[in-house]
């Protein structure tokens, strides 16, 4: 363990001690109820929740798609050195990965349609909170499932490329598995739609 290790240990110990001190101080001076996670979460604006959901949805989807394209693409490139015929055929793996990003874009558009300015004097209604939460968790579900789907398709696509380079007949067989992988992203899409289906638009709730 070098100096970096000592420094990390020191920082960790200091943080823990400070947190412990603050926690005990609040608790022992009779103000323990300030540790209110639920209240903290409720104080976050529903806009924040909704927009986080949208950005996670598109962001994670694009990460998944690009990662998958990278995994499949580098193998296609290597395999195509000896067998150039695989390059065109295996573009289908790249397209499957790309579809994952498109799911993310579609869902982000659907979600962002629910965002609108709240103009009532009463502020956010219960319905607004519901919309915010559903957008967040719907977006997270879509984003995560698309991330994993992109990885799965990328890895299968890479295998499809090297297998195709070795034996042409294997391509279709592995493609079938690849399609099963790409359906995972579709599941996320459907669940995302269902989760936010009952949420009403921000603007409608107030007008």
């Amino acid at each position, binding site marked *: 363990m070098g100096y970096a290790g000592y420094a990390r240990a020191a920082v960790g110990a200091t943080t823990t001690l400070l947190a412990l001190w603050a926690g005990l101080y609040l608790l022992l001076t009779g103000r323990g109820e300030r540790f209110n996670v639920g209240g903290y979460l409720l104080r976050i604006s529903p806009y924040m929740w909704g927009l986080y959901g949208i950005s996670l949805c598109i962001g994670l989807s694009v990460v998944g798609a690009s*990662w998958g394209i*990278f*995994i499949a*693409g*580098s*193998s*296609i*490139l*290597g*395999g*195509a*050195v*000896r*067998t150039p015929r695989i390059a065109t055929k295996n573009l289908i793996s790249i397209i499957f990965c790309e579809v994952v990003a498109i799911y993310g874009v579609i869902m982000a558009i659907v979600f962002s349609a629910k965002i609108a300015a709240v103009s009532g004097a009463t502020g956010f209604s219960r319905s607004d909170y519901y919309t915010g939460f559903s957008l967040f968790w719907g977006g997270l579900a879509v984003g995560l499932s698309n991330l994993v789907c992109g*990885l799965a398709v990328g*890895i299968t696509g*890479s*295998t499809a*490329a*090297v297998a195709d*380079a*070795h034996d042409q007949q294997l391509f279709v067989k592995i493609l079938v598995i690849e399609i099963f992988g790409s359906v995972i992203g579709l599941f996320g899409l459907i669940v995302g739609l269902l989760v936010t289906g009952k949420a009403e638009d921000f603007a409608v709730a107030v007008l």
Partner: protein
Amino acid sequence: MNEIHFNVDAGYLEGVVRGYRDGLITSPQYLNLTQCETMDDLKLQLATTDYGSLLQNEPSPLSTSTLAARCTDALVAEFQYLQQNAAEPISRFLDYITYGYMIDNVILLITGTLHERDTHDLLEKCHPLGFFDSMPALCVATTVKELYHTVMVDSPLAGYFRECLSAEDLNELNMEIIRNTLYKAYLEDFDAYCRSLGDPTATIMSEILSFEADRRTVNITINSFGTELSKDDRARLYPRLGGMYPEAQTKLARVDDMDQVKAILEQYGEYRSMIVGVNLSMAGGDSGSSALSLEDRFFAKEVQLNKDSFEQQFHYGVFYSWLRLKEQEIRNVVWIAECISQHQKDKIANYTNIY
């Protein structure tokens, strides 16, 4: 989780090496090669394989040594392409592969110097994969210590020399001991490195390296019969890994003749099938008759293990395996060429089929 980041460094190279693997000569092509009557026929048949373009410009009475040299050139060119495109940690893995050739080169140069051969001839005979910068200076050494301090200390092999320094002078027997000690240290180091890479590289490479260690154990035992090598020294040369370590090795360290070796090997399922029907009296590697020698069985087993490593994706073992398969292919082609040029067509089928 290895799959998701493996291709960052090695995706392209893995694709390339799998392409190389597809270029290996298949069994129908071998059948065509064995049908050849003259070396020109063989050259014509080889033109349909990956070697075609290399042999094109050779003058017509093709000699076996030229054929072997051109094939090795092809292998080296492909390997160097991999090395040039490699990044850490794969470049280190490829370097590890070349250390084995470096050991052979060092031993070749020193043995040649002992017999007062010309340095330039020797340098030409060295395997190109095992070249390192200070290699031509090896010829000046007279004792192991001097060898270590003047030349080897800067080479990648320096760490492996630690155990050999007890040997004082360089003579024929010592050279073999040094070779085996170096190779033992190299195998153990390579195995430890592969294990540090984690699954699935570790699993696949440890299987291949275990077999390599077992093969060396048996070969050291067989070759030490009738020499001055004491039994303790013999036990010290065995690599400390593989399926035979430590139980079978302690037994093998005590044997005196081939029959006892056979009796020990028969106790282990993996090796029992291998020695059935083998004429052990010629196990030293010279395939005099049409019966298969133990050496051939080992080659066949090695080919099988290396083929298996291609069944899995996202690991470094394919690079090692491809090199071994390609070497076996060159041995096969040269064997067929030798049989044709020496009119020994009855032994031509003794090659080891790969695909």
